[in-house]
């Protein structure tokens, strides 16, 4: 027990150290970004004035090894425009900018070729969400269990992703199995560097699923959340 707790402490200490070094290196690498990075952080605290202390608590909690992701996440949003800042950044950027653009639009139409894109991004309240490559990414269960890797993506005739094929189990490439899981059963968090792809299905559901085969009608083998009771026969319409 003692051993384990000391290990945890050491692990958390190294994790902290890594984060600190990562944070320390980032401004050094690109100086101009450091101001942009510093700017949003106070805004969060300003936006939530009564909870300044709770924010500090949250920061303290974030330092525990259980979820070592928040600090990298906090450094990532300025680059990738993650969710926590959407509330703060979008209204802040929105208010001063649109009126001049609209004015410019009416007065001289040839002037702004680029800004309209920026406007369309900000006006529909959905900043371009961050994306990641999923092929080859490890998939984890909700409890952090290793559920295999994404090896393929199945799309329908509308071009929408319908399912991800995950490859799991086996030893050194022997005895692994493939199943197709419903695309919506995956939670993809690009800001999470370690576990960006989380599968919302249980190990039992995945085990009971029919094996994914290239040649057969793959849509019949897709495992969905809805089929939780009878995972082997997902009621998927053709």
């Amino acid at each position, binding site marked *: 027990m003692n051993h384990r707790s000391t290990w945890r402490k050491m692990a958390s200490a190294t994790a902290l150290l890594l984060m600190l070094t990562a944070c320390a290196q980032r401004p050094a690498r690109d100086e101009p970004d450091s101001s942009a990075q510093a700017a949003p952080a106070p805004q969060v605290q300003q936006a939530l004035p009564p909870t300044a202390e709770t924010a500090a608590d949250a920061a303290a909690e974030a330092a525990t090894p259980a979820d070592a992701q928040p600090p990298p996440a906090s450094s990532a949003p300025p680059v990738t425009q993650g969710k926590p800042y959407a509330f703060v950044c979008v209204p802040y950027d929105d208010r001063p900018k649109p009126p001049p653009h609209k004015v410019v639009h009416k007065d001289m139409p040839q002037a702004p070729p680029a800004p309209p894109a920026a406007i369309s991004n900000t006006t529909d309240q959905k900043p371009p969400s961050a994306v990641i*490559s999923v*092929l*080859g990414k490890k998939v984890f269960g909700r409890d952090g*269990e290793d559920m295999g*890797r994404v*090896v*393929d993506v199945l799309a329908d005739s509308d071009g929408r992703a319908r399912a991800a094929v995950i*490859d*799991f*189990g*086996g*030893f*050194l*490439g*022997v*005895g*692994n*199995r493939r199943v197709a899981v419903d695309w919506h059963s995956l939670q993809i968090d690009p800001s999470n560097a370690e576990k960006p792809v989380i599968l919302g299905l249980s*190990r*039992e559901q995945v*085990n009971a699923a029919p*094996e994914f*085969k*290239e040649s057969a009608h793959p849509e019949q083998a897709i495992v969905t959340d809805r089929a939780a009771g009878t995972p082997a026969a997902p009621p998927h319409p053709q």
Partner: protein
Amino acid sequence: MLPSGQSGATAEVSDHAANRGLDWFNLCVANIQTGFGPFVAVYLVSQGWTQTAIGIALSIGTVTAMASQVPAGALVDAVRSKAAVAAISVLAFTASALMFAIYPIPLFVYLAEILHGFSSCTLGPAVAAISLALVGRAAMGTRLGRNARYASIGNGVGAALMGACGSYVSERAVFFLTAAVTLPAVFALLPLRGVGAIAPATAPPDPDTTAVVADTAPPGAKRAAVMRVLLDRRLLIFSACAMLFTFANAPMLPLAASTLTTRVGHLASLLIGACIVLPQLIVALASPAVGRIADLRGRRPLLLLGFSMLPLRGLLFAMMPSPTLVVLIQALDGIAAACFGIMVPLITSDVAGRSGHYTLSLGVVGFAIGIGATVSTTAAGWVADHFGSQIAFLGLAGVGLAATLLLLTFMPETRPPQLPGSAATDDGGPGVVPTRLAHTP
């Protein structure tokens, strides 16, 4: 090259060192080979490769290995220093492992697959030729038993080491580890440098001498000699048996492992690891005895023992045993692998060992084995998809039974008749204890 004038005590010492070197070499090479094979697919998936691209890469490897079996065998026959061939083959492994690890882009992966496919085909025959040159035909079975023992230790250690490396460090680290292990393999070859060179001078009936004779003969006669070796009835029957054996054997572990993954869940990886390591343990324990018995009693009983494990294993797997029993049934694979692994180079050396076309003949048998392995994985997968894994196991058991019956009916004993039973133990080499042999069945 070692000075060729060695004799007496020094020769014995160098003989001992050479045997030890060969032991280590077998161990390291088996360790290296663990990283290639099915694991390549896992690694390429982790690098974001698509299934199509992975399929192409693996097919390139398979096709290269198949196409180069026979030419590689002929090449090893032609090259004087088998140790040099072995060293170059291992260095090719280093190169391909590093290519996998550093540049996993299609060009280098395809190149690495080609390099690995070809050098695998030169390495096996080179090791067999070194063994034959080192101990002669009388003790070949014993020496091959030692080879198999150390190779299986290497396989087992490799599987454990690479498996741990893959899951705790990274998939990429496996290939760096593989590249690192090639260095001790090359060092292990150092005492073997002179084997090919000394043998002709001291032992006239050894294969290298006859190879030289064959080289100097007119081309027509040479070709006729090659054909005589390759069309030897025993070699053809054995090749057919070996093909059927591999056909029945190759898909059994993957099939059993995938049923484990279906039924056990997160413990499956551990159990599959056990399914891979346990047979290696059995081979390590049994193969010296198998080699000695082959030298003393003959090849046929051991061949029949090894082949008969196949239908038995298929039937047991078809009964859908519990996961623990699956691991235990894999012990039968160990017995089969010990017998088969030793008999392939041994029977080939019985047939072609004096002809100067030993490794060419090994290439032919290897080609037959390759066909069996390639066809059967597809076939068994198809049967398992359409009729279930139970039927697939029964089918594989049937093929195994056919192989056993073919062996029983047509395959003659190939042990050189002029050798008295005790001759093998005289030459057994260091580390071989010839006691209590009469009591072994």
